Every structure is written in C-alpha cells, then in structure tokens.
C-alpha cells in the first residue's frame, strides 16, 4: 500500500478492482465514504459480482472473471489515445513507456469489450472519469491476484497509476488492502519460501547479511542444510506444499515433505482441497498451532496430529504492522487462559527442544521488545530500523495527538511524526514515510523517490531502445544534493551498501544529503525478467471462451516452479466448457474470516451466517430447475464435488457461481464434527468452497487461481 487508509480521504476518485472492501475491510469504509461524500469522488467498482462495495459505488462495472488485465490495458490505451496521460510525470519518472504504448494499442475499447464483456463505450467513459478526477486511489485485493496471470494483472494496476501520474501523491497511489491482522508485517518478514526477511532474497549475500544481524556463524547456518545449494533455492509455497507430500507430480526436492507445522493457518483456504486432505493424511507429523482446532485436525484420520493451543492476540503483546505500513504495539489484556501459551512461549519450547536456542536467542533477551529491535536492525531495505519499541509505544500512548487526515502528530511528544512511523523510517528520528514515492517532501520529512533497483540503463528486447533508468533532471526531493536521478548508495562504509551496512551510517549520510538511500530512479513498465515484459491478457486456464485461446493463450508448462512441475498450456483445454459451463469464483463474507476456525466458533457470528451457500442468478436457477432452499452439487473439472445450499441472487450474473471460502467440517453431506477434539467442533460447518476451486497458479508467484475456474451445477 503506497498511501494509507486515511490518505484515501483525499482521493478525487477511487477505483476498486477485485476488492470487496465493505466485507473484507469494513473499517476502511469510513475513509472511502468520506472521500465520496466530501470530494464528490466517483467510486468505481469493477467486479464480476455486485458486491456490498458495489452497493456503495457511483459506477459499477461487471467484468468477466480473469480479464482484469485486458480491462486495465484498455483503460491505459484509452487514456493514451485521448491524450489524458500525465506527460511530464511519464517523461521524468517512468521507464519503458514507449514499449508499453505499443502493447496497449492492441487493447482498443472494442477488443476489451470482446474479452471482458464490458461495453466499449464504458471503457472510454471510465478512463475519462479517472482522467477528470485526479488523483485516483486504486485498490485491488485477491480478486486481482488469484489468477494464473495475477502478477501481470497487478502490474497493469500500477502502470495505469503511472500513466495517470497518480503515484507519490496524496489521494492517489496503489492501495492494496491487506487481508488479515498483521499480514503486512508477515509479508515484510517474508514468511514465504523465496526470501529471507525484508525482501533480501536467498542469495549468499542475503544469508550473510542476516547471519550478521542474528550474530550467528554463517558456516553454522550452512551446516543446517542437507547441502549448501538448497539455501539458495526457493522452497514449496503455501499454494502447493501438498504436492511435496503426495509425490504425484514431478518435484525438485532433496526429500518429500514429511512433517508440517500449521501455525495460524486454515488449510481450507487452499484450493484443490481434496488433495490437501490427502496430503494431510499422508504426513508423518502434523502440528497445528491455533487458538481453535482448525479443520486439519478433523480431516486427518491418522494419530500423528498434535494440537498446540495457542493464546489469542489479547493474551500476548508485541509489534504488528498495519495495511498502511504503520507499526503498532499490541499490549496484553489478560494472561493466556486455560492450557494455552502465547506464540513466543511455544516457539521457545520448540527451539529449545530442537537444540539451537543459543543461536536463536543470541540477541533476544527481553521478549518481545528485543524481537522488534532485532528484526528492525536487519530490515534496512524497507526502513524498519527507525521504529524502536520505545517509539512505537509512545505513538500508542499519544493516539489523540495525531491528525485523522494527515496522520501527523500536531504537538505533543510525537510532534511532526506520522502515526506508526510507516516504513521506510530510516533513522530513530525519522518521522516515517506516509506516502511512498512522494517527491514533494524532503526525505528527512517522509518524502521518497522511486527506488533504483534494476540497474542504470536498459536496452529493451521489443524495441531495441536503450533507456536511462534513473529519474530525469529536475526530479528530486527538496534539499537533495543531486538535482535529478541518482543510483543507490554504496561504499559509504567500504564493502557495504545502504541495505547491508548494519552501522546504518549509509542511511544517515544519504538523509543528510537530502537523498534517498536507495537512489532516485524511474518506475518501469517493462519487466525484462518476467515472461510478459509488458503485461498482457491471457485467457484463464479453464476458460468459458475457448474461442479466445488462440489469440490470448496461456504460458508453456513450467517445470520446477517453486519445486513443483506446473501445467499451463497442457491444462488449457478448449473443450472443458462443454461439460463445465459456469465460471466459479470465491470471496469473503463480512461475518467470517479466513478458514473460519475462529469465527465459526463464535456463536453470534455463526448465528448471522449459519450455512455454506452458492450464489446463483435467478435466471440460471430457473433454467436449471433450482428453487430457493434447494441444495445443489457443484463439480469441478478435477472431479471434486461439494453439496451446498443455494442462494438465489442477482449479485452474480447468469454465467457465474460465487462461493464463500470460510466453511469446512463437512464434505458432500458427511460431517467431520465428531472428529474434532471433544467439545471443540465449530458451531457452523459446511463444505469447503475450495474443494471445487480449479487447478491454476500464477506464473511468477504461484498464488492459486481461485477466482476464474469452471464448474458444473446440478440440483441435489
């Protein structure tokens, strides 16, 4: 999120695509509605479903699932062909623009109508609406990412904002709402298989950096792996870990996965859930750490499952990071109740038993303050070092001194600082960076240019043109010594750069010069290390429009994609739609959360949403002879089935079925309730929607494609 929830109050228009903020992020709505009411900002909602957010929109655009990139490229093309682009912003701060223009030209309003189902005139009208109401705040969520081209789709969102000149501006930006408590913090710590904390990656340099931070011997760390080469290889992802257990597809791993710890993870948020269940049962050891027994504890028929009762957030303390990149301190309200322990205690017992407590706790004496200090001292890439526990707590104690519009403290002990010191916060007297890439403020006051991340110059494959990747002359933060683009800082302390200099001297020197430690560059429209250098539309793997496959085909199959062979081309069967004629998409309901282990165990939330359902348009229901209160069977092309109650509603169109994904505990009428630990079955159970979400994974990130599969529906 480049801006903050509060900053959205300054937007002159807002566009949401693949986001149902009203249900997934209700608290954000006060700021969104403020912009709508105070600025008369158009609220544009692009979604296959008329969501509760669409109910609050001024303009609702219904889009065919999985065609977001085509629509965005269409908007970009409409902006450019009508001369609405921000020419000065593009000239000075954007790279690869000409190469973008060439690709976007294919997405005429008519071509976009053909792909997305959105009328051509509507494409131009929305583009004009954005052009006339700048800055625009753009928000996407899982509806934008969970596709096999999710990484391309998200890039089109960013590029649209660059072309309109909406980046680095109050009221503008790309504002991706994070879906869980502290998920921004989890991402920043890279609880992922392809990077060490703070996006350092898995190179030797990254390992050596973190070993210095942790004060552990690098060679000792190397010795923890079966062979050194595995330190630098990406691991399995959450989306497909089970393939590492099942061994049914080609995997690249020194060993199959034999044991697993699920720490605060509802397994039913995984697509292809039948395969997940199979893998859970094949594991030699499964440990579940959660305040509530998750469904994984019930679907496993083996006796090697251990449930460690973990305390809730109210029974522990520590630092957490919000969607606005703000770091906050959470104080303990009560001690952990019953037999539960907090995460720190569980981790400590585990680490001691595994025998590396000395190394693990070398710099952590006082929990949790020392954890925040340690992770901050190493996370220089994203400026987590300025937010010390003392400063974070001071912000919490002085909430009332921060302005709701600017998030800046006016007077008091935090005078001039931004609430939560949004990262990057480069030094312990830096106020935090409320808006990323904002060159109107000095770096010391929270300003920032674009980062110089990808070299100084690039020759593009498509055009043969060479372009300087640094920002143009005249683009700089106030007070900068260099009055234009500049590369990242290195060798201030010999042998280090701004992100590996643990003395933090480099950061201080850069800020003293009025410059950003990471340089001042252009944002790129061409990503030469991705298969689609400029993003394009590709038909969903399982498409209801096989006639478009030849023009917009998927990728070649990808072996060893996060260790797992992944099918693309061989999976895109044009005949699938004959037997599976309806598009299936999933999403959230406001009452439940994630896998629902917690919320379905709350009697009041259970009362409000007591049953799993599938949303079906009245016209389709009538055509299929389905009446309200009927049960339906939904079948995926993989042969998985669920049996759920029907909800007949115009929220979805005649070709689309919507499923909430929070349910679990039954499958095709069979209940697992008896298999939960005695007395711990949730109040509400239902078939997991993810049983029938289809095969499909993003080409870069491997996120599961749950928003654009196909299915068959019959009356039960």
């Amino acid at each position, binding site marked *: 999120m480049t801006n903050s929830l509060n900053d959205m109050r300054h937007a002159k228009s807002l566009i949401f695509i693949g986001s149902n903020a009203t249900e997934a992020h209700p608290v954000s709505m006060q700021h969104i509605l403020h912009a709508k009411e105070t600025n008369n900002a158009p609220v544009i909602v692009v979604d296959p479903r008329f969501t509760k957010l669409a109910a609050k929109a001024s303009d609702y655009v219904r889009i065919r699932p999985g065609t977001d990139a085509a629509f965005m490229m269409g908007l970009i093309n409409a902006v450019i062909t009508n001369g609405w682009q921000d020419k000065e912003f593009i000239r000075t701060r954007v790279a690869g623009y000409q190469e973008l223009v060439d690709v976007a030209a294919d997405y005429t309003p008519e071509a976009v109508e053909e792909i997305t189902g959105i009328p051509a005139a509507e494409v131009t009208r929305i583009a004009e*609406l954005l052009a006339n109401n700048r800055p625009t705040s753009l928000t996407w969520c899982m509806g934008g990412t969970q596709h096999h081209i999710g990484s391309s789709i998200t890039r089109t969102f960013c590029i649209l904002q660059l072309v309109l000149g909406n980046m680095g501006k109050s009221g503008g930006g790309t504002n991706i709402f994070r879906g869980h408590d502290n998920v921004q913090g989890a991402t920043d710590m890279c609880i992922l298989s392809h990077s060490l904390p703070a996006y350092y990656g898995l190179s030797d340099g990254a390992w050596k950096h973190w070993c210095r931070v942790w004060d552990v011997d690098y060679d000792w760390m190397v010795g923890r792996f079966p062979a050194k080469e595995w330190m630098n290889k990406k691991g399995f992802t959450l989306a497909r870990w089970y393939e590492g257990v099942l061994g049914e597809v080609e995997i690249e791993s020194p060993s199959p996965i034999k044991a697993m710890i699920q720490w605060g993870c509802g397994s039913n948020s995984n697509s292809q859930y039948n395969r997940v269940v199979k893998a859970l049962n094949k594991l030699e050891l499964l440990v579940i750490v959660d305040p509530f027994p998750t469904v994984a504890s019930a679907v496993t028929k083996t006796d090697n499952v251990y449930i460690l009762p973990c305390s809730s957030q109210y029974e522990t303390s520590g630092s957490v990071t919000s969607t606005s990149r703000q770091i906050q301190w959470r104080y303990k309200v009560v001690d952990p109740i019953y037999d539960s322990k907090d995460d720190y205690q569980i981790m400590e017992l585990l680490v001691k038993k595994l025998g590396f407590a000395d190394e693990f706790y070398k710099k952590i004496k006082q929990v949790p303050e020392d954890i925040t200090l340690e992770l901050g001292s190493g996370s220089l890439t994203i400026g987590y070092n300025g937010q010390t526990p003392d400063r974070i707590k001071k912000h919490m104690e002085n909430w009332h001194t921060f302005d709701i519009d600017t998030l800046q403290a006016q007077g008091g002990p935090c005078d001039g600082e931004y609430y939560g010191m949004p990262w990057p916060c480069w030094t312990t007297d830096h106020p935090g960076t409320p808006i990323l890439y904002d060159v109107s403020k000095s770096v010391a006051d929270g300003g920032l240019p674009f980062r110089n991340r990808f070299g100084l110059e690039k020759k593009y494959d498509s055009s043969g043109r060479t372009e300087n990747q640094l920002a143009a002359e005249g683009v700089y933060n106030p007070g900068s010594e260099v009055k234009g683009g500049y590369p990242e800082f290195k060798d201030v302390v010999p042998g280090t750069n701004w992100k590996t200099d643990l003395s933090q001297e480099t950061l201080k020197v850069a800020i003293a010069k009025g410059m950003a430690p990471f340089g001042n560059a252009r944002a790129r429209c061409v990503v030469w290390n991705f298969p689609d250098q400029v993003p394009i539309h590709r038909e969903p793997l399982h498409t209801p429009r096989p006639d478009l496959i030849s023009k917009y085909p998927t990728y070649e199959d990808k072996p060893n994609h996060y260790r797992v062979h992944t099918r693309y081309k061989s999976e895109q069967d044009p005949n699938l739609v004959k037997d599976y004629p309806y598009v299936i998409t999933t999403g959230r309901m406001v009452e439940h959360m994630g896998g629902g282990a917690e919320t379905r165990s709350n009697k*009041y939330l259970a009362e409000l949403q007591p049953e799993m359902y599938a949303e079906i348009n009245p016209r389709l229901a009538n055509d299929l002879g389905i009446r309200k209160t009927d049960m339906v069977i939904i079948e995926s092309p993989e042969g998985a089935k669920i049996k759920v109650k029907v909800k007949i509603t115009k929220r979805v169109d005649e070709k689309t079925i919507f499923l909430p994904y929070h349910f679990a505990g039954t499958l095709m009428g069979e209940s697992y309730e008896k298999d939960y630990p005695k007395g711990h079955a949730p109040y509400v159970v239902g078939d997991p929607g993810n049983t029938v979400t289809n095969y499909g994974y993003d080409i870069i990130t491997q996120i599961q494609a749950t928003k654009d599969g196909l299915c068959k529906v019959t009356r039960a």
Partner: protein
Amino acid sequence: MARMKFLCDVERCIDCSGCVVACKEGHHVPVGVNRRRVITLKQGEPGEKSISVSCMHCSDAPCIAVCPVDAIYQREDGIVLVNKKTCIGCGYCFMACPFGAPQFPKGNVFGARGAMDKCTFCAGGPEEDFSDEEKKLYGQNRIAEGKVPLCAGMCATKALLAGDADVVADVYRKRVFQRGSGVNAWGWSKAYKKK
C-alpha cells in the same frame, strides 16, 4: 432535557452487522434474540441499501400504551425500558411495535414465553445501576457510565448515530449539506459533464 435517539445513515451503513455482534457480545444476549438487526433492501441490485434497526425509543411509544401490566416505561431522557420482573410475556407490545423491536426467549410447546427483551440503549433496567441483577437481566449500563451505546460506538463507518437527538440531528444535517451542496448539487454533473 436531552432526548436520546438512534439514527442510521443509510448512505453510510455497509451491512457489516458489527452493531449486532457488539450488542450481543456486550450484553450476552442469547442466540435467537435480536435487540438489533441490519435490514437490506434490493440486495444485489443497483439501489441496494441497508439500515440498522432496533427499538427506536419512540417519543410516544405504542408498546407503553398497550402493555396490560405497565411493565414498559420511559425515562426522562426518552429511553424506553421494560421491567422484566413485571412483564407477563403476552406479546402485545410486539403487535404494537412498528419496528419488530420486542423480542422473546424461545417459547415452550404451549406457546408461553418469557419476559420481553429489547434494546435498552445500553441503559440497563429498573434495578440499581451496576448491580448484578441489572447486569443479569439487561446487560451493561453504559449510559450510567457516560458512554454511547455499544452498537454506535462500534460502527465502523459512523452510520449509526446515538445520543442527544439535537446533537445527532446536527451531525446528520451537516452530512446532508456536505453531500447535497456545491458540486454535489443535483444536475451539476450533467450540466458540466463532470461524470
């Protein structure tokens, strides 16, 4: 003296049921008894609107008029409360109420019901303030603590307003002015081709 009122701003209500859960959790209201509900009209279609409804604490409350045992009464600040120890569970108030506010615990096979339960505006009941008896029968007494009702306090978008009717009306009036003035004026967008 101030009169207490609720007002739900339908332009702001997002149908999240946060008010419902705040009320139930805060007062330990049994499942099946709804002191507050969110009603949605035209669900899934353009024009969809939601509104949070509970006892409206009517100035001239029909429930008080029909109660055969005078169990329902109005405080000086306008809050309408029921004395559960007097209530006979006849259900007349439910028939009289235009909003369906009075709630009854689940009846037995002969149709007999327990005492009526409804929104207290978080003001407890006739028992002594903060007594165990008050808490058991009616829930918290936030008004006596000088706080707004839980539902309004919890509302994420400040759609649900509660408090002195004059202040509530003033907040709402300001919002209406803001939405309806200047470039918000009807026809403005069309005249200037703004949208």
